[in-house]
């Protein structure tokens, strides 16, 4: 690699190395970024001695396009969950044995209702469909830090996991009283969601039975603020493939692979959704999105007609590679994933574009790499 840059984005240090290639018309430009050992080390020009529009030109264009695809790689370490030392959770059993979870996080598409129910189900055996999430209403959830900094699962989910475990202990003492047994002998059968004395599953108390028994003394409920010992450090690598038309400067993002290690994965589908969205926004920052101002400081991209918001047509599908290195910082082993895509994708795409045109002498292009800027950079470097 001939390039090595350090990108700083908020608290994130991302080391990016990019290499990609450019093509345009029949002038085929290949990257020199892959070190001298990689042939070819300079631009190759295809000379097609036939009229434009014929088979020969079509073949030459197709071959050129395939030859020019190379990689841009970005390796990053991220800090997540650094906001707040903990989060609140309350788990309450209703008369019918269903559970209400009150969380201090504030989901807006991340899937907390599903994930928190999975965590509570793991502790209590109450079916996921019988668990409901309450959030955002400060009358009902007076303590909470919220959803930011990729903290929700590792702090909010962790709190639900811990509080649900405590509630099971509380329920065991109630079951012991009802079954006239010692608390240590009570076991929770998570398959049926009921409590019985070890060895005698026929006589059991369900969550509903226990909730009813506790109704006069405040209900079967537990709440707490669960602290974590610190932030976590997800890491990963993103690979972007771009093509640059050197005649027009137009950049096409043709492939993207993301490997993000966010620790223990609770729900792979939700995890991938977080990565997909992050990659799109990260790539958009490198490709076209920009908040602009005129010389007097007036915003000139203040609506979606003026602001170049990335669409499906400018993006490839994303290949996600899973890697799990659990953290000891919380009970779940989860690190953050909400922002990883935005952190890995931007330097990968940006570096890929710069490397694609580096053989013309271009060393830097300010983000975003719009056609106008890429074309101008090539022209001035040539």
């Amino acid at each position, binding site marked *: 690699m001939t390039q090595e840059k350090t990108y700083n984005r908020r608290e994130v240090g991302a080391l990016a190395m990019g290499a990609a290639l450019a093509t345009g018309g029949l002038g085929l430009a290949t990257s020199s970024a892959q070190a001298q050992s990689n042939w070819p080390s300079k631009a190759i020009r295809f000379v097609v001695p036939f009229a434009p529009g014929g088979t020969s030109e079509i073949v030459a264009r197709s071959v050129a396009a395939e030859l020019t695809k190379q990689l841009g790689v970005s390796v990053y370490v991220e800090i997540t969950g650094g906001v707040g030392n903990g989060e609140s959770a309350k788990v309450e059993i209703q008369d019918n044995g269903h559970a209400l979870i009150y969380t201090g996080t504030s989901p807006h*598409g991340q899937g907390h209702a599903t994930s928190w129910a999975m965590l509570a189900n793991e502790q209590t055996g109450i079916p996921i469909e019988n668990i409901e999430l309450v959030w955002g209403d400060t009358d009902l959830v007076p303590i909470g830090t919220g959803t930011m900094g990729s903290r929700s699962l590792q702090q909010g989910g962790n709190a639900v996991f811990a509080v649900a475990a405590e509630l099971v202990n509380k329920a065991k003492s109630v079951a012991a009283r009802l079954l006239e047994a010692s608390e240590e002998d009570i076991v929770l059968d998570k398959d049926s969601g009921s409590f019985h004395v070890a060895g005698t599953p026929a006589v059991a108390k369900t969550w509903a039975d226990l909730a009813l028994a506790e109704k006069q003394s405040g209900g079967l409920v537990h709440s707490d603020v669960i602290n974590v010992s610190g932030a976590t450090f997800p890491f990963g690598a993103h690979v972007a493939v771009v093509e640059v038309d050197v005649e027009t400067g137009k950049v096409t993002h043709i492939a993207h692979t993301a490997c993000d290690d966010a620790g223990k994965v609770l729900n792979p589908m939700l995890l991938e959704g977080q990565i997909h*969205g992050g*990659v799109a926004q990260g790539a958009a920052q490198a490709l076209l999105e920009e908040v602009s101002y005129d010389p007097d400081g007036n915003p000139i991209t203040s609506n979606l007609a003026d602001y170049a918001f990335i669409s*499906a047509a400018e993006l490839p*599908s994303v290949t996600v590679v899973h890697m799990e290195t659990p953290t000891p910082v919380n009970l779940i082993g989860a690190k953050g994933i909400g922002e990883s895509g935005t952190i890995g994708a931007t330097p990968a795409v940006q570096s890929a574009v710069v490397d694609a045109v580096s053989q013309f002498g271009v060393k830097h292009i300010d983000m975003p790499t719009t056609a106008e800027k890429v074309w101008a950079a090539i022209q001035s470097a040539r």
Partner: protein
Amino acid sequence: MKVTITVNGTTHESDVEPRTLLVQYVRESLGLTGTNIGCDTSSCGACSLHLNGESVKSCTVLAVQADGGSVTTIEGLAKDGVMHPMQQAFMENHGLQCGYCTPGMVMAAIGLLNENPSPTEEQVRIGLEGNLCRCTGYHNIVKSVLACANNK
């Protein structure tokens, strides 16, 4: 102005101001708030619904232009409590996160498949270019549309 518009199978005779947008009509006159307003500039597609079988951005259609026509909104897709196959595909493929773009995205996607029942991934991406989403990176939206097309 008097207009007669059939919305989700029910014919409504309404008196609207000429300037009333179709999206205002369905949201405010009929109370069908499933159709969202995103940008008001026809850029984001959140307000997409079907007018006479075609997907349109209802923030730049006047209600009077729909006079005598038939409108389908997101509320009109499910039949007898069973979701439309496109809604089902979005659910199964995690094709939504915050959900704001979803009603428009689903309507646009159905319009897309009406025109091209077996699109390639690229055709889906280009076909949905007018509908913006910040959460999903479009990956699972495209997957949902392709899944729906393949299930037909």
